[in-house]
């Protein structure tokens, strides 16, 4: 069946003429939209941008992205959705980030943002509808012009064709923009797709291989100054006194100013600002967190784990079953604080005028940025113009609920009284907070006669990333932050256990924490998948069979698991001498990914040679893009599994740059073979779901190789 979408009832598609000739397909803001709605009522501006698609008389087609390109490939896959329905000439496509405006709010989250691996799933209909609507209008315009029936017209590669005659879209845009909007649009049936489901090369490659791509850090214009900020060495610390004499003597330094987050040195260029900062003498008030120590925290977390927490979920009577049992597997797991360390250090350029504030930055959180900038400058949100540049990686760091780096940059520009680009050094980034929180899990499991788990008691300890943020009222229920427990509370495994209980402790530590690629699943998948592997071993069953049995009612898990097992020939092949294989499968962001890692240990170090991965993500819009994201997510997770860790002593972060905050390097990259489960289900997440299974797959392989169960990240085998 074709999907017939009534445009009038949904009332969010409309067309207008493009100034200077052309057709614009725009979206009207849905009224139910929380954040956007507040802005809409505040907005008295005559023009609020809302275009998603512009077709000009020269045939060029511009697609506006409501989400940010940070490597995940939506610069290509969102245009594919429009081009599919529009039958566009792919070579005529241009792509731009949309400005910040209510029309671009995320269909599920109600604010303009990129995250949760949700861009394609949330835009799959909207972008296709925009393309279909434009096509319907162009066909109508062509039919009228040619004096034929609409049904006698077809479209292909940017043209409407009727018999021997054809008209280019560019020739039709003016007529099309004056037509009444069609009552409904019809989307193609999947069997007629020409682009969706076929790999398209990235549209941003030409700019990114020539140095032309504009990242936030590359913004330059006449009069723009650069600032670096000296922030408190301990979170929650504050400035006691500043001596800026030496800093002001550095050639190129213009001003030293105080902002809420520290002391900013504003200069003609980065190097002068950095030297100026080095020359600052600042005395700090250490604040309440001067005693922070990650080793001590771990002991506190351990104690908490053994005490009563908030009840997350339960079935049967796990405590009773455990106390009656003779053999209990008891295990503790720990994962450290992690920085996102996106390749492009954080930065934000701000220019404030009497009645406008213009911002250039790579951001995942436009609506928040706009709101905080409005607040600080005393302007209305619609007077704040956000130019989203390419993001040199995000991984969640460019989506802080308090817009930390934008807030700071607006303060700097305001105090400096000049346009300023505030740039973070790598050390600022590693020590600047907003980390994946440290977590400790304690699990106690009893196996039944059949070797399958019969009782499971699970306690999770770690900071809530949403507590104290504007998201708390929406996303923390009865004190339980869903991002702390995702992957355990909703685990397919637990559902198969008659007696189970999950408890949560969310201690506050003073360390700013944040979502980090795959959020709670970064720790929950590690725990669940290594624990299930250990249970399989205790039960004397193969890790693959054991999982199949526990997951027998979960066809998508099974499909991913079976595809990965088939591709590595689990049953019929053996790894090379000195190597072993480990499996993990995990659901996150609506998708299921199975990974099988092949590892050896060389000079005491884990070496991962090969990873076979399989994902069920519904329809894969751009299959090679999905493969690239699996490679990326595995590399990201593998760096954390093997190397990355932040520690605190006397309140201070000990690591500072890539020499001591290790991430994966090329020589450590395994061969990755990524496969996609064939599916006609609606698309689900792709950017993140590949990360959670890699750490447990590697840990399970190490256990198979050495017998050691490593329950702490990063994985460090003992010799």
């Amino acid at each position, binding site marked *: 069946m074709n999907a017939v979408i009534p445009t009038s009832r949904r009332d969010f598609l409309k067309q207008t003429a493009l100034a200077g000739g052309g057709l614009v397909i725009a979206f009207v803001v849905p009224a139910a939209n929380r954040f956007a709605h507040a802005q809409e009522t505040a907005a008295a501006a005559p023009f609020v941008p809302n275009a998603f698609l512009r077709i000009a008389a020269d045939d060029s087609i511009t697609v506006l992205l409501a989400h940010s390109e940070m490597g995940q490939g939506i610069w290509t896959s969102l245009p594919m959705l429009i081009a599919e329905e529009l039958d566009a000439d792919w070579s005529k496509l241009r792509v731009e980030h949309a400005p910040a405006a209510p029309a671009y709010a995320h269909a599920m989250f109600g604010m303009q943002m990129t995250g949760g691996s949700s861009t394609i799933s949330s835009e799959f209909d909207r972008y296709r509808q925009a393309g279909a609507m434009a096509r319907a209008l162009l066909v109508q315009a062509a039919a009228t012009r040619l004096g034929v029936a609409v049904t006698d017209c077809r479209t292909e590669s940017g043209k409407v064709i009727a018999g021997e005659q054809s008209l280019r879209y560019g020739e039709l845009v003016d007529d099309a923009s004056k037509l009444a909007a069609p009552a409904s649009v019809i989307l193609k049936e999947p069997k007629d797709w020409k682009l969706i489901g076929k790999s398209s090369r990235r549209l941003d490659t030409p700019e990114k291989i*020539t*140095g032309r791509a504009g990242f936030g850090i590359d913004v330059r214009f006449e009069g723009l100054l650069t600032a670096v900020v000296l922030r408190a060495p301990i979170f929650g610390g504050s400035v006691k006194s500043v001596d800026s004499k030496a800093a002001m003597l550095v050639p190129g330094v213009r001003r030293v100013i105080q902002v809420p987050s520290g002391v900013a040195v504003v200069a003609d260029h980065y*190097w002068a600002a950095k030297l100026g900062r080095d020359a600052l003498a600042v005395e700090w008030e250490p604040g309440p967190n001067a005693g922070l120590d990650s080793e001590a925290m771990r002991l506190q977390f351990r104690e908490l784990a053994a005490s009563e927490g908030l009840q997350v979920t339960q079935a049967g009577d796990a405590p009773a079953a455990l106390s009656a049992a003779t053999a209990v597997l008891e295990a503790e797991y720990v994962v450290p604080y992690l920085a996102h360390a996106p390749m492009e250090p954080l930065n934000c350029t701000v220019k404030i005028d009497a009645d406008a504030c213009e911002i250039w930055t790579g951001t995942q959180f436009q609506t928040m940025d706009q709101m905080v900038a409005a607040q600080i400058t005393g302007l209305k949100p619609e007077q704040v113009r956000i130019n989203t540049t390419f993001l*040199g990686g995000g991984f969640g760091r460019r989506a802080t609920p308090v817009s930390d780096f934008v807030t700071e940059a607006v303060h700097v520009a305001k105090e400096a009284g000049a346009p300023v680009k505030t740039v973070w050094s790598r050390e600022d980034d590693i020590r600047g907070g907003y980390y994946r929180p440290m977590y400790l899990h304690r699990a106690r499991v009893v196996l039944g006669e059949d070797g399958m788990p019969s009782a499971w008691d699970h306690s999770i300890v770690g900071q809530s990333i949403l507590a104290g943020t504007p998201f708390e009222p929406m996303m923390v229920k009865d004190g339980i932050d869903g991002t702390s427990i995702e992957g355990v509370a909703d685990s397919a495994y637990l559902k198969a256990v008659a007696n189970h209980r999950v408890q949560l402790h969310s201690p506050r530590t003073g360390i700013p924490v944040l979502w980090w690629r795959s959020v709670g699943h970064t720790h929950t998948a590690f725990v669940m998948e290594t624990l299930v592997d250990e249970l399989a071993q205790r039960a004397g069953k193969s890790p693959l069979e054991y999982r199949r049995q526990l997951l027998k009612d979960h066809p998508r898990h099974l499909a991913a698991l079976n595809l990965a097992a088939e591709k590595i020939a689990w049953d019929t092949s053996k790894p090379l001498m000195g190597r072993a294989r480990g499996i993990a499968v995990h659901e996150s962001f609506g998708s299921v990914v199975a990974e099988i890692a092949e590892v050896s240990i060389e000079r005491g170090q884990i070496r991962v040679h090969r990873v076979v991965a399989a994902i069920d993500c519904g329809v894969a819009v751009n299959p090679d893009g999905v493969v690239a994201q699996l*490679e990326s997510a595995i590399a990201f997770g593998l760096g954390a599994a093997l190397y990355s860790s932040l520690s605190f002593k006397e309140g201070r972060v000990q690591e500072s740059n890539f020499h001591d905050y290790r991430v994966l390097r090329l020589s450590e990259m395994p061969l990755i073979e990524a496969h996609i489960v064939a599916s006609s289900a609606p698309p689900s997440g792709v950017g993140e779901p590949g990360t959670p299974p890699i750490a447990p797959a590697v840990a399970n392989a190490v256990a198979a190789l050495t017998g050691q169960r490593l329950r702490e990240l990063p994985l460090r085998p003992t010799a």
Partner: protein
Amino acid sequence: MKLRVNGSEHEVTAAADMPLLWVLRDLIGLTGTKFGCGIAQCGACTVHLDGAPVRSCVTPASAAEGKAITTIEGLSADGSHPVQRAWTEIDVVQCGYCQSGQIMSAVALLAAKPDPSDADIDAAMSGNICRCGTYQRVRAAVHKAAELAKS
């Protein structure tokens, strides 16, 4: 001081020890060369001095005087260099931020070793961090570029 970048002369006023990276980016305006760590750990700032790869974040600008400085912008404007063509064919890039450095390291490697082995690639390219994890495609693209350069 006088610097010759991508064949053009630039007269800049800068302290002798100002890193070449910031002279290129902030004084000359060539922003294709990237800042990633500032301590020769990530390779994002890789440029060539007389064809040899250097980390411009720790190279004083004065050390580049009298040498031919090549940046990503000097490779080709249209992406037609064999390494860039290979990058396009393999669809290497993701966020793209590390890619100027990756490409400059690859060009230098191929100049020294037209037919690099995987071990050569490991040795020459492991100083270039990619947080998007494009390593597998970088490796494939270096091999591809070696092929393209021959044909």
